[in-house]
């Protein structure tokens, strides 16, 4: 087959100009597309609308750097303070946050965007999140609907111009295999973006990934880029975990 979605980082990131509405796979720093983030920081790709479940992990780590560099104009997610960098950008007024969603609501809004639905009906937070004044930048009150005597919020889908996900292995067709908890909702995010970049630890020949292990099928992916190898990625996270006191330091002279 003549399909080859493998690209250089530069070629893929040419699809991410300043002002992009960008969705990114992650969970408090885990499963983040490290090299794409570093590219955006190095090239100061700003005025981003960033759709991500959390605002990353503190400690000058990956996605948090986008906030620290002032590249995020608006954040759409569930938490502004998982990284101090995002918290500072929000509190200083540099970054806009119209509304904060419960995590399950956010995940279903992304799923609705991924699956071509008109939205979803969510019971969580009714009578709480629609309190006047809670989100001053919201232009319209939250819509509700009654079904069988229960009240639900009407939540619109979330979509993006570009989605960036991070997987373990991928092939030239764009099939992506995820590792452990880094699966997150990366497949939904891939489907919710018009142009989707998959950054992976390893690019393998077509046919290597067993079909039942494909977490994100190739048709949902436009570009595959080589990220850090798994070993490099382990070291990156281990170093940050040691720095944050979440893992004990290695004994003197002991190297991974």
């Amino acid at each position: 087959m003549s399909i080859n979605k493998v690209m250089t980082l530069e070629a893929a990131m040419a699809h991410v100009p300043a002002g992009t509405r960008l969705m990114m796979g992650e969970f408090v720093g885990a499963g983040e597309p490290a090299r794409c983030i570093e590219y955006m920081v190095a090239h100061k790709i700003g005025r981003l609308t960033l759709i991500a479940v959390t605002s990353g992990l503190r400690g000058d780590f990956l996605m948090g750097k986008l906030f620290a560099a002032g590249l995020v104009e608006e954040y759409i997610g569930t938490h502004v303070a998982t990284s101090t960098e995002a918290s500072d950008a929000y509190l200083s007024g540099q970054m806009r946050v119209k509304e904060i969603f419960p995590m399950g609501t956010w995940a279903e809004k992304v799923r609705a965007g991924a699956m071509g639905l008109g939205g979803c009906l969510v019971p969580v937070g009714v009578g709480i999140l629609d309190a006047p004044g809670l989100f001053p930048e919201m232009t319209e009150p939250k819509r509700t609907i009654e079904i069988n005597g229960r009240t639900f919020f009407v939540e619109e889908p979330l979509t993006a111009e570009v989605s960036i996900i991070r997987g373990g292995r991928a092939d030239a067709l764009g099939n992506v295999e995820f590792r452990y908890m880094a699966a997150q909702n990366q497949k939904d995010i891939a489907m919710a973006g018009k142009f989707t970049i998959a950054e992976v630890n390893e690019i393998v020949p077509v046919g290597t990934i067993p079909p039942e292990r494909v977490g994100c099928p190739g048709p949902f992916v436009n570009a595959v880029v080589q990220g850090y190898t798994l070993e490099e990625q382990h070291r990156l996270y281990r170093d940050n975990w040691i720095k944050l006191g979440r893992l004990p330091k290695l004994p003197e002279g002991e190297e991974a």
Partner: protein
Amino acid sequence: MSHLHGQDPRVIIARRCAQELRDGEVVNLGIGIPTMTANYLPPGVNVIFHSENGCFGFGPKPGTLDADSDISNASTEPVTLLPGAAIMDLATSLGAMRNGYIATSVLGGLEVDQEGNLANWAHKRQGKWWPGIGGGMDLCHGVPRIIAALQHTDKHGHSKIKKRTLLPLTGRNCVKTIVTDHAVFDVTAEGLILREAYPGLNVDNIRSITEADFAVAADFRPMQL
């Protein structure tokens, strides 16, 4: 906290919360003090820990060289996977929380009140509500037994156990049990019932630091720590 004689109040709370967990149930622990609960499970009590980033059955922290960058909990601390662990995607994991598949959740709180309302996601900072919801609201919506784990008073000595919290809520009428470094309350339709106090404290001691109204259980006793 003078009554603790130098012990860490968070450890007292975590130890006491661990006694609330039932063998074989599925449990979600929130960030902070609740996470520490896993360290103090009584002998013979084994539970399935759920992590909202998409896992049933995670285990303790690995050694530094064994840490895997793709195996971490909801606070992105490295964890291990126990035999029988199961991984799911994020929407499924949050669906499990919303739709009753988690039996018990231990959650931290800024304030809790006598109607079982929990506030743990927002306080005012620089005129804005800060910081964020995460999965807490999904848990309060769908988990039948929410245990609120928090220090009894703030750093100024004000009660965090309120008659009525005025902070934005995480969940309404959702808390079933409140565990603090001073006391354990059940939340009932008739209001709070004081079940236990830290050893050496009496009902008047608890009343003097508690804004909420409460009744005292017939079998009121000291915490067994």
